[in-house]
């Protein structure tokens, strides 16, 4: 780390319709450093990176490369300056092979494709960093972790000097994350400077320097060793937040009779892989059952079977003793089972509908909401408005399209709907993914509240620490199998990590 400014922004500003994403940002990346961007959702981290990468064009301010003012009209320019970026959401082609994904759009001279040459070049890179990938397997067959490697290789293949990683660890197992940081270290040695974004405080502390962003502004750049996690977080949120979301809990509940019992559930996905491999679980009223594991290991299929959106090949799901597997989602909902899907915009919301319409999604034919043939606008509006109050959703009115809501507020809309219409069971798949601590805290408290009201809650998350704090029991899922069920009171991240890791070679 030479202290030499490599890439620098001066008063950089970027607006989106109705949003100020970046405001007067002065950001400095020094040669050879690993620089972390830290900040709540929508603080503008990704936007800043996209500007540095030339994907977005700043509305104001300037960017300097090695002291020279530069204009990035498109990623082409930044790539020419040796800047590469791994985006928050993968930009891969499922139907392409790893190799095709990496080389597409890289050669702009020749007409023909020289696959061999590219492949050899890649082999060298992989050997150097100890990444191993089958170049001819289709990306859709790769695990999420492996896909992340492909993303990184895309940049390395272009011989980058600066690598921007937007929330690279969000989808990685603990040990994959460790591996990634090792690799980042190695890159540093090879003279590659790195910007990475993370919401995980532990990772933030690993950076050489941290820039804290909030609501579109860069508040401060600090050295981790000169500060503490707590300070950093307060700095970001602008108020006290408990990092430990919930203090030790001592929840007692009756385990004699499961409200939902899952037996030997099996499901083969369309690529012939067992997404659910003989899963058995019992869920009791008044408990929070955690489901620990890296996403993509069967959680989605499990939650879909439990909400009537997927018909398992074999096995049973019994609700209070009667089998309901393979019934329609209608049936499950009418039994009082609520669902918070992991992909909130695709499965949980109709973005173009306003809040009140989303509040009745799935219940539009309920008597309370209809008057004869027609929808009962007044009732719906009234309900929407007091749910907006109850869940303090930040919005001017109940008629704002959900697409205009922030991630966190959108998530609150789902929470409000599901908790309002279900009364027995809540299924929550990655409910806090991509949300900042403020919102996370809120969501967890709501879930805990319902648990205390006697709900049975199934909560899947990648945040082991949160699970331990929140849950009564934790089931570890990996590769479509339940690797073990532990009492939250008497376990540790390490134990769970081991149970996952025990399978991680196959699961990652």
């Amino acid at each position: 780390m030479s202290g030499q400014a490599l890439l620098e922004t001066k008063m950089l500003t970027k607006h989106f319709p109705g949003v100020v994403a970046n405001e007067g940002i002065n950001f400095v990346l020094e040669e050879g450093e690993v620089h972390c961007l830290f900040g709540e959702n929508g603080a503008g981290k990704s936007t800043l990176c996209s500007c540095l990468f030339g994907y977005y064009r700043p509305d104001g301010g300037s960017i300097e490369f090695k002291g020279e003012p530069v204009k990035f009209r498109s990623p082409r320019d930044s790539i020419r300056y040796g800047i590469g970026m791994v985006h928050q959401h993968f930009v891969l082609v499922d139907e392409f092979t790893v190799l095709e994904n990496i080389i597409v759009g890289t050669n702009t001279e020749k007409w023909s494709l020289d696959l061999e040459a590219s492949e050899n070049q890649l082999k060298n890179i992989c050997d150097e960093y100890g990444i191993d990938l089958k170049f001819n397997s289709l990306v859709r067959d790769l695990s999420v972790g492996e896909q992340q490697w492909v993303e990184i290789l895309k940049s390395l293949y272009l011989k980058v000097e600066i690598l921007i990683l937007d929330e690279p660890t969000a989808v990685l197992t603990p040990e994959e994350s460790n591996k990634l940081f090792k690799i980042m270290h190695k890159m540093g040695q090879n003279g590659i400077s790195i910007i990475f974004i993370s919401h995980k405080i532990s990772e933030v502390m690993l950076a050489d320097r941290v820039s804290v962003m909030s609501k579109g502004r860069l508040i401060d750049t600090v050295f981790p060793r000169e500060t503490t996690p707590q300070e950093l977080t307060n700095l970001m949120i602008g108020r006290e937040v408990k990092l430990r979301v919930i203090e030790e809990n001592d929840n007692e509940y009756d385990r004699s009779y499961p409200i939902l019992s899952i037996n030997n559930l099996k499901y083969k996905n369309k690529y012939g892989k067992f997404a659910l491999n003989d899963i058995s679980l019992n869920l009791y009223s008044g408990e929070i059952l955690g489901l620990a594991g890296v996403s993509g290991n069967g959680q989605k299929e499990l939650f879909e079977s439990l909400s009537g959106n997927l018909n398992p090949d074999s096995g049973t799901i019994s609700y209070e003793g009667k089998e309901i597997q393979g019934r329609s989602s209608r049936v499950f909902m009418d039994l009082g089972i609520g669902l918070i899907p992991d992909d909130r915009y695709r499965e949980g919301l109709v973005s173009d509908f306003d809040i009140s319409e989303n509040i009745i999604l799935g219940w539009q034919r309920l008597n309370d909401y209809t008057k004869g043939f027609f929808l009962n606008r007044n009732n719906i509006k009234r309900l929407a408005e007091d749910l907006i109050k109850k869940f303090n959703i930040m919005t001017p009115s109940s008629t704002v399209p959900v697409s205009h809501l922030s991630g966190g507020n959108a998530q609150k809309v789902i929470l409000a709907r599901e908790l309002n219409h279900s009364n027995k069971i809540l299924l929550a798949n990655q409910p806090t993914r991509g949300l900042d601590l403020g919102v996370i805290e809120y969501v967890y408290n709501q879930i805990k509240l319902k648990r205390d009201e006697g709900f049975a809650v199934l909560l899947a998350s990648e945040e082991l620490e949160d699970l331990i704090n929140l849950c009564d029991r934790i089931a570890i899922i990996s590769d479509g199998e339940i690797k073990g069920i532990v009492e939250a009171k008497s376990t540790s991240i390490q134990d769970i990590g081991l149970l996952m890791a025990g399978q991680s070679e196959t699961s990652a």
Partner: protein
Amino acid sequence: MISLEKRLESNISWVLFVYSLACIVGFIFTAFLLWSSGTDIPKAFFALYKGSLSSKKAIFSSLNYATPLILTGLATVVAFRAQIWSIGQEGQVYAGAMSAYFASLMFYGAPLWIHLLLVIAFGALGGALLGVLSAVLKNKFHVNEVISTVMINYIIIFFLSYMVGGGPWTEISDVNTTVYQQSDPVADYSKLPYLFGSTKLHLGFLLAILSAVACHFLIYSTPFGYEIRAMGHNPVALGHRGTNTHKTLLYILILSGAIAGLAGVTEIFGTSHRLKSEALYGLGYTGIIVGMIGGLTPLGTIIAGIIFGGLASGALYMKVLAKVPAALVPTIEGMFLLFFLCAGVAARYKIVVTGKDV
């Protein structure tokens, strides 16, 4: 490179501006076409006016032409609102006409109003059946609805050709009349009664307006309408939260088909009074354009339909009085659609020219 930026707030006057601009450009192009065909442009436009709204009679005639277009337009609205790209309206019009004709023979002798109701009901039924067909093809066999509906269109047209060209409904031929691709005339009392003492405008027009109003309320203020719109925006979420989207799709296509079928009824029993494909040809395809220009809203469709009806009525005058070559109308319609689509973009987005990529 040109990119688009969404406008958060829609500015009414701007929207009006771009759409009227689209109209003006449309008329300029029309004038150019007329000029290219060597017709006297003022004369042509006057003929258009004369034939479309110069007189009570002209207006009735325009509304008469508008009637089936409003109906097929509505059929389009219902389906497209749910992002179901059914272009089977054409075939459904034929099917509606045929089953209505069947009913008019079957229930011959029933009391007038019952007879008419049955004829109309069967018309809707016929269209609906084709709707069911494409719905089943999509739900059960994943056959893309665009393709299935287009193919069914061709098939049904050949079917009618058989029924009235050699088949059982072929007109009886003797010294007083001869076979030619049409049925016997429909019984007088099967004809849709005329309105307002006109000899053109018939009950079908009321039917169309009523259907439009009904569709309006259906789409915006009923649970089914909610499902239609949700289907259009995000079928996955709709399905995940307790709505059987297969059923929804089926009902939508049934409704759409039924409305299109009505267009067949109004044409045969309101206007041509014989079953013949000549009278039905193109109504479905034009309806798609009408629905689109109507902004996929029922009330907008009424307006678009009436405009197109005026065009059709005026076009005849243009042909006769100004010697404008045939087929000008579809050309104009197609042009206006494209310009309106562009206007729609201009209304919803800011167009920003950014640096160039390669």
